[in-house]
């Protein structure tokens, strides 16, 4: 479901999408922008907030006197601690507004609930909408750098922060995620100016041009990953997006494998549904390419296992395949090592993990398993929606059993984000 807002009048300046950007990314024209003149609304949807949320609101208020914070309580159960935190948040400043959703709406719904309020307050006429998770820690200049990057270029609809891991040193799993997030930031930089920019303006902390968000009607509810969905719609409308390399933000990642797995199945399956539903393939181009090659590889291996030929494969072909694979692995490995120079939080353990390569290989196999599971889950859901398939009691029982099995494996069509408690 999309919330209807009054349409903005700004028409995005279409960034060209050409194959040339495969190698040479497009450049965004820039103009100077005075951060002090920007009016900003920061929306923090929350469910069972913790002390980190209070700190986040305080940090946001310090970022600019023209910044107003909207904390949206998405029906947090009345449990010990939450009420006190909400009361504390509400009394921090007059610039903080505490909203409550009438029913549990998940993140996209909570964001839309606040957006309706922000856009209704016409007299304030915000320029920028910040969307944040409630467990984010920001640096002093994060908001300033994000907003300046966004507003100094007319083509941009959204600019996301750099993502870092707050609880990186907890265990091997969190360290691996820390290294992975370093790669996320590198991917975003590689995708700047490529098919209108990175695939996802993440929900952790992204600055949206208010007019662009108004134009597309806010966030689409009912998606597992609303940030990817909203990015794809912005890009389909001709807007570009990018990440701000000088806007760091830290978040809390899952510390247990079970939570981590649930998170990744949600991301994986959620991403697949966004690609399948995308109106413009260029807006999700990187994923179209990725899924196509990945599935081709799977099919190819499957076919090779079942078919035998005449043994007439020239040796040079196998040599080229092996050489290219090794070359790719080698280049990637040395690039990952080089990337460590930008990992400011790194310590000796991170170096060991990266140098060994094997932990990250195992980690990536886990991700591959989540992806393959998503393909199967997607096929299952597509099949069960077919009218002809649902007729008999036996089929209904099989569908029920299948749903229970997928749920047990962490796959669902509606889910909450994982939650990791952290002390500050």
């Amino acid at each position, binding site marked *: 479901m999309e919330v209807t807002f009054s349409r903005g009048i700004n028409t995005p300046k279409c960034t060209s999408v050409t194959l040339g950007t495969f190698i040479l990314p497009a450049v965004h024209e820039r103009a100077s922008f005075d951060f002090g003149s920007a009016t900003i609304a920061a929306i923090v949807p929350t469910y069972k907030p913790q002390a980190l949320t209070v700190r986040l609101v305080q940090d946001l208020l310090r970022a600019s006197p023209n910044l107003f914070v909207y904390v949206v309580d998405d029906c947090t159960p009345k449990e010990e601690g939450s009420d006190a935190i909400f009361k504390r948040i509400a009394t921090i400043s007059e610039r903080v507004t505490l909203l409550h959703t009438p029913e549990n709406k998940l993140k996209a719904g909570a964001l839309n609930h606040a957006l309706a309020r922000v856009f209704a307050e016409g007299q304030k006429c915000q320029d920028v909408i910040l969307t944040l998770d409630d467990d984010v820690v920001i640096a*002093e200049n994060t908001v300033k750098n994000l907003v300046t990057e966004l507003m100094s270029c007319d083509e941009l609809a959204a600019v996301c922060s750099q993502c870092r891991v707050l609880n990186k040193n907890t265990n091997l799993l969190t360290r691996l995620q820390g290294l992975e997030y370093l790669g996320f930031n590198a991917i975003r930089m*590689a995708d700047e100016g490529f098919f209108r920019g990175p695939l996802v303006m993440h*929900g952790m902390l992204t600055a949206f041009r208010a007019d662009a968000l108004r134009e597309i009607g806010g966030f689409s509810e009912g998606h597992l990953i609303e940030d990817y969905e909203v990015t794809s719609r912005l890009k389909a409308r001709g807007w570009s997006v990018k990440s701000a390399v000088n806007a*760091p933000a830290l978040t*809390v990642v899952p510390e247990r494998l079970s939570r981590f797995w649930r998170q990744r199945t949600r991301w*994986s399956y959620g991403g697949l549904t966004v690609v399948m539903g995308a109106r413009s393939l260029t807006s999700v181009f990187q994923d179209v390419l990725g899924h196509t090659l990945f599935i081709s590889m799977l099919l*190819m291996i499957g076919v090779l296992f079942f078919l035998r030929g005449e043994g007439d494969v*020239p040796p040079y072909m*196998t040599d*080229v395949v092996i050489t290219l694979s090794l070359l790719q692995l080698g280049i990637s490995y040395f690039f990952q090592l080089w990337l460590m120079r930008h990992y400011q939080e790194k310590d000796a353990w991170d170096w060991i993990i990266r140098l060994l390569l094997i932990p990250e290989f195992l980690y990536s196999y886990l991700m591959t398993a989540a992806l393959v599971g998503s393909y199967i889950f997607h096929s299952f859901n597509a099949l069960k929606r077919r009218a002809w398939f649902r007729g008999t009691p036996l089929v209904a029982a099989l569908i029920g059993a299948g749903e229970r099995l997928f749920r047990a494996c962490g796959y669902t069509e509606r889910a909450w984000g994982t939650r990791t408690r952290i002390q500050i």
Partner: protein
Amino acid sequence: MARVRNDAISCGGYDPNTMIHFGGTVSLGTSLSPLGMYAGYLLMQSGNFWLALCFLVLTTIFFLVSIASLCRYVINFHRNKHLLRPEPAEARLLLEI
């Protein structure tokens, strides 16, 4: 990770498997590539020429996509180099954490 997000913070959306490829959010070329190449190598020893050719084409595309992404990274890195030095505020934050 954060709580109110049916999405999750999706740093990068969902699963940009970053070991090898740059680009989409699929584990393109990462974990499956070495395994696939090995399986392809073994099977091509007694395999079908046309399937081997398809495998070769696929491997080449994987390679080119990775190299193109690396080129874009290097170009964008140089364009943004002046912004990459950590600011004092960022350094303070990291020390505090």
